[in-house]
């Protein structure tokens, strides 16, 4: 099955005189775990924001589940948005709500569950990301950086999305937690079938999690292939990058 879940067509992004994306194409198929790599400031976060419809590219279009989010009526658009979860680079937790309420928020918004069910689901998500149930009453400002990441991930997972977008999910996690995080994503993927697009600078996570890798350089996608195939792509950034992951690839076999 290679249904395109997300289709980015000829996208240009321009901020003032700063051209971030130039004629960028990228297709992501259902069921894949795709990592998006590129130098700092190369426009990875911006691309994720285009995908979830937070921003509109200056030119070109982004299709999600085959539809352009910006050209949909409100109710279907809302439903479509419920099928994706996003983990923001800075967490973006609601600072006025406790951890529990943060995760319960999307569930309550659905108005389909009673409080007992919501409670159970929230505690389940908390245990998924290995947080103690009693952290639920804390406010985001009382959490450490890594904990914020995990709570944000729990919130992104609350609605069991089909498409998960993760902006540097393992930044701020200790190595063991990063590994667990990889396991967690793999588990969910196996149980429910999940498409993941994630941005990372952490090569270990990248190698162990991603099926494909999309490389963003020179304002476009210079490679969109499996990790092994990167070797044959003739681009300085890709070659450099491949040197970094070669050892890891060999180690995992």
């Amino acid at each position, binding site marked *: 099955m290679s249904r395109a879940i997300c289709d980015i067509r000829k996208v240009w992004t321009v901020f003032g005189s700063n051209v971030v994306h130039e004629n960028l194409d990228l297709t992501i198929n259902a069921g894949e775990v795709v990592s998006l790599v590129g130098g700092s400031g190369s426009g990875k976060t911006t691309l994720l924001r285009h995908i979830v419809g937070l921003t509109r590219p200056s030119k070109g279009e982004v299709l999600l589940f085959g539809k352009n989010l910006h050209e949909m009526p409100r109710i279907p658009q809302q*439903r*479509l948005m*419920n*099928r994706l979860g996003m983990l923001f680079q800075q967490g973006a937790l*609601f*600072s*006025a709500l406790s951890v529990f309420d943060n995760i319960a928020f999307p*569930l309550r918004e*659905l*108005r*389909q*569950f*009673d*409080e*007992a*069910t919501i*409670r*159970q*689901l929230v*505690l*389940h*998500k908390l*245990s998924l990301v290995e947080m103690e*149930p009693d952290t639920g009453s804390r*406010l*985001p*400002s009382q959490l450490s950086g890594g904990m914020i990441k995990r709570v944000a991930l729990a919130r992104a997972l609350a*609605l*069991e999305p*089909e498409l998960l977008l993760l902006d540097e999910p393992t930044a701020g996690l200790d190595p063991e937690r990063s590994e667990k995080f990889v396991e967690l994503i793999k588990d969910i993927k196996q*149980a*429910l079938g999940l498409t993941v697009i994630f941005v990372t600078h952490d090569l270990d996570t990248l190698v162990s999690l991603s099926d494909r890798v999309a490389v963003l350089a020179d304002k476009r996608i210079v490679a969109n292939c499996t990790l092994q195939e990167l070797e044959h792509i003739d681009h300085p950034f890709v070659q450099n990058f491949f040197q970094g992951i070669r050892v890891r690839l060999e180690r995992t076999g």
Partner: protein
Amino acid sequence: MAIASFQLAQDSEGKKRISLHGQWSLREMDNDFAQLRQALKPHFANQDLHWDLSEVEQLDTAGAAVLWNGWQGKLDNKTGLSEEQNHLFQTLGEINAQATEKPKSGFDPLTLIAAWGKLTIFLSSHITDFVRLTGLLVIELAYLIRRPQDFPWREFSANIYKSGVTALPVTALLGMMIGIAMSYLMATQLRTFGADIFIVNILGLAVIRELGPILMAVLVAGRSGSAMTAQIGVMRVTEEIDALAVMGISRILRVVLPKVLGLTFIAPMLVIWTSVWALLGGAFSANMELGLGFRFFFDYLATVVQPVNLTLSLIKGVMFGFVVAVVACHFGLRIKPNTESLSRSTTSSVVTAITCVILIDAVFAILTSGIGV
């Protein structure tokens, strides 16, 4: 792929069984678990019912939790569960979802005392913080006297511009409108007594002594006070204040002091500005209604309103500017790093500032009642 549904049937032995179909997950966008729960309610209650889950295409935690809660955690007489589904239900079972209910007691007189105590603690914490802030301001001022080259000129002038210069149009407009309205109302009253000329006395005294300073203070509290609180608050939320501290820069010196000094410095001038426009408005109205000439209005004003009133008005301006700025900074520094606290503190800052200003004004009026009238 189909939406979640269920079917009731009776097997050969006359036993009732219920089989679930479709996608019991949030993935299927047309699912409505609220309706499903409602429809399943009578069946959940039926203990003898046999549940068959073999036709379920997909079960996620949300669907499982709904079922689990309906079954109240009992998994007997459920068949057709796959390995994974079984595991899912087990994980849910391990979660202790019992909401720790707080025991609700009736009226307890102790809560009243506790509430009183909490209020006292809350107020005293405000007072301590306020006193500490004023103390810190004094210390920083003393430091500046020893090292005048450290004076934050840039921030000081920026604050004068922000809370003074940009406030000019709105204070002028409001002063003028109030002047016109007051003079207009008084004119009709005074005319019935044939006491037209007294409009100058009343208006002059009221505007210069009371209205000018109060109007200015209210406007500045709303404009600049709230802005100061919000700015300091956001700086706290985004840890900018901490970043300053790490660079060895005193946040009081760099953030609070320029605001307080700036507003204290500019406020008396704003008072004059507001009063002038209020008087102009009043003169305009008096001219229209009573036929008093502008020239006469202002000549006469100078003879009936003693200059000491102007001094009083300037003193008030200084006090009000200081109070608004200090209150704004006080509330800003107390903001906790979340949006709720930010909005609450900003509101409190404006309300407290205006209340303080009016209280001070009342006390001041009593103390100076013998001067200049």
